[in-house]
């Protein structure tokens, strides 16, 4: 197995971690008041403010933004593997590269159509 194919497979797995991290990041509440760092203040103050609703704009854009970036990273992984297979196509290399790309393909197939169908939230 060539070093290039091994590197491509390894890097694509790193990109899988990036995709997962971006997805998780996109699901985090973006209202400062929902943050754990303000827990002490919320307990101490009798009329502590309510965190903003995640459906309020622009908080409603957070998930979409991170999901789109995450899926673009998955797409990069698939393209990288496809290009690497053109240059490195011994059976073992193809097997490893396809295995590394598979989770990205599944993610793209499951989430891309859903994302495209979801209407853009209106501002305000």
């Amino acid at each position, binding site marked *: 197995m060539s*070093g*290039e194919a091994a*590197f491509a497979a390894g*890097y694509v797995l790193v*990109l899988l971690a*990036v995709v997962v991290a971006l997805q998780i990041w996109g699901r985090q509440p*973006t*209202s*400062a*008041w929902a*943050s*754990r*760092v*303000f*827990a*002490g*203040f919320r307990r101490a*103050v009798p*009329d*502590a*403010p309510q965190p*903003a*609703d995640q459906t*309020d*704009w*622009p*908080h409603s*854009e*957070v998930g979409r*933004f*991170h999901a*789109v*970036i995450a899926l*673009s*990273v998955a797409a*990069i992984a698939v*393209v*990288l593997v496809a*290009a*690497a297979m053109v*240059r490195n196509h011994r059976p073992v290399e193809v097997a490893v590269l396809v295995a590394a790309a598979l989770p990205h393909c599944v993610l793209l197939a499951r989430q891309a159509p859903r994302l495209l169908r979801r209407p*853009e939230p*209106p*501002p*305000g």
Partner: protein
Amino acid sequence: MVVSEAPGAAVPEPAPPPTGTPAGKRGRMIGRGWVQAAILVTLVGFFVLGFLAIRTYQAQPPIPEKVTTSDGQLLFTGEDIRQGQEVFLRNGLMQYGSIFGHGAYLGPDFTADYLHRAATSVQEQYGGAEAGHARTVEDFRVNRYDEKTGTLVWSPAQGKAFTELTGHYAATLNSPDGKNGLRPNAITDPAEIHDLTAYFGWTAWAAAAERPDKTYSYTNNWPSEPLVDNAPTGHTVTWSVLSLIFLLVGAGALFAAFGRWNFLGWHNRDHRELRFHAPRTVLLTPAQRATAWFFFIMAGLFLVQTLLGSATQHYRADLESFFGLPLDHWLPYNLTRTWHVQLSIFWVVTSFLAIGIFLAPLIARGWEPKRQALLTRLLLGALVVVVVGSLIGEMAGMRGWLGPLWAQLGNQGFEYLDLGRIWQVLLTAGMGIWAFILFRGLRRRLRTEHVANMPWLFFLAALALPAFYAVGLLASPDSHFTAADFWRFIVVHLWVEDFLELFTTATVAYLFVLLGVVRERVALSVIFLDIVLYSAGGVIGTMHHLYFSGEPAEHLALGATFSALEVVPLLFLTVEAWSFLQLGARRQSASSTPFPHRWAVMFLAAVGFWNFLGAGVFGFLINLPIVSYYEIGTGLTANHAHAAMMGVYGMLAVGFAMFALRYLIPEERWSDRLASISFWSLNLGLAWMSFATLLPAGALQLYRVVDAGYADGRSLGYLQGGTNMFLEWLRLPGDVVFMVGGVLPLLWMTYLGIRYRSKRTRAPEAPAETLLFTEVVPDSDDDATNTDAADLVVGVADKLGGGSGGPAEAPR
């Protein structure tokens, strides 16, 4: 001049000032502690920076009067070294390769390249690796510079290596075929080649020879070179670990403090309703109309910058030709990269200048002095002259068409400060004139405000831009490189990461205040927090660029420590960013009029994302001295630079344009679709650029440097290797998306802003008013207690003007 119905209501005089303030002047709207903390932190930062500037001059590597061999042969003189630096800069070689790791990434690092080649030659002369290693190490590491006589003595073997390398650089830089990124026959004069080799040889000597009374070299043992036992120093390792600890402690302390106390005042809940004026009802002033041309030129420069970027990138993927065209004959790599880098500053600054002029009348509640538009147009003309003049000058300077005026009218050659001295002075003066234009527009408002309030902070942040850009004038082609690099990074880092950041924060904060979605007091807190946090880390943190360029070890220690702390505000303000965009903070009931700035806000949200990823994560990835020791000047630096510069300041510049264009382009011509395409294409293109090429190629190059030494990892041979070329080509789809989908729609929208902007302007005699929104204040004690004086004025004014449904209400 036609005047339309004013959208808002007239504003009465400001509320009575707090006790102790002059009559008619609004008192300070933020606690004194914030102001004192900001001043103290900034003063301490600059005091330490001043000390480090002095140490730079005291401890920079000496330039000897002459360099001889121990058997008496004169190799070169100090004047040859200085002339060599001028040849290096005049020919744009810092935008081809690098020196002390600083510069461009296609050509070699000439310090490491000379050191490796010379050490290889010396070792071979001494009988190879086994027999000659110890003598080679001794030749290079023992410092034989005599301060009294100004003489540096090299061994005869080093002298022979110098002669060999003069031939090598003559063959490389005088190649008739080109094919190496430089134009064919780039440097033909043998005397210039000799001086250039002397310059490279002197930097290589400084990189290996130990400082007096120290066990490490002038560059803290950089670059990694096993042939001369150059390896990371104790300082490099120790301060890397300590800076990590400082980061963790700093982040923990900050989050703990903000969890405990409500510094930012987000607790101001209220139930008021904002009604945004439809853009078509907002009459612009003549100067605001004139900014349409700024935004059009900004987008044009952006397009040219990306085209030059693609040509620059093509050299890394294919040195032979540009799809069959011999591009290096007309636009060699060092020229395309010079223009690419300079334009990245020009187009961003153009947007910043424009948004300042656009906001001034909004801050002054609609007032604009006479002839402000004329001054704005003159500024635009001056900007065009400087941009075009400096770009042409850079080409003419590199080609030797300007003779002795190359540094004045052509290119000074320092990366990011490439432009000729006259253009540099004119650009600084232009920014000064811009600050004067802002002062004219704001002066009525400034008269009524405490100096710690937002109008003054906005103006002072603007004033800092020309002031700190001017620091770059302290670096000139005849300066010692170490000192020049110190001042260069005051511009590259401090001007960009501290003062551009300050102006950015002040502007974004003011945008939200002007839109009514953030209280002025909260915005002020954010600005002061920004000053404190960025000054705490950013001012001294500038030194993280100067670990290995001839500065003493204290620069490394302080740079590592404080630049690690720079990540803290990035972490915190990213958490805070979305809250800052929390439009619901000031209205828990939905607005009855649509919010017109969807895409401006989206670009600002993208700024938060890239600030964290590009500046924070990718920046910290390469920030520790031990990482930087191997990484400096590799693809990972380019990864950080692109994700941070375009991701933060680029997105911001486009966001500012979107905000202003919303009022410049008539409603029927405005296209959310075009804005959407541009937004997603710019973000996806940038993500592609980073994750498909810059990050993996940079990681591989870093591995190569650690494995085979710095010179090898930076060699053309490595860059032209199969895997690196494969990754370089992989960038193509993302770049196409970025340019076609991202930049072209933006250019079209800015054209619409010129072509269809309304001729109706706001009359000078029109009453002062809040221009962008009205506010409905319900009769509620709860709200009244949460309302500050300024908001009350606006709210009452809107009530008087019928903001709750009267004739002044904005159309829905």
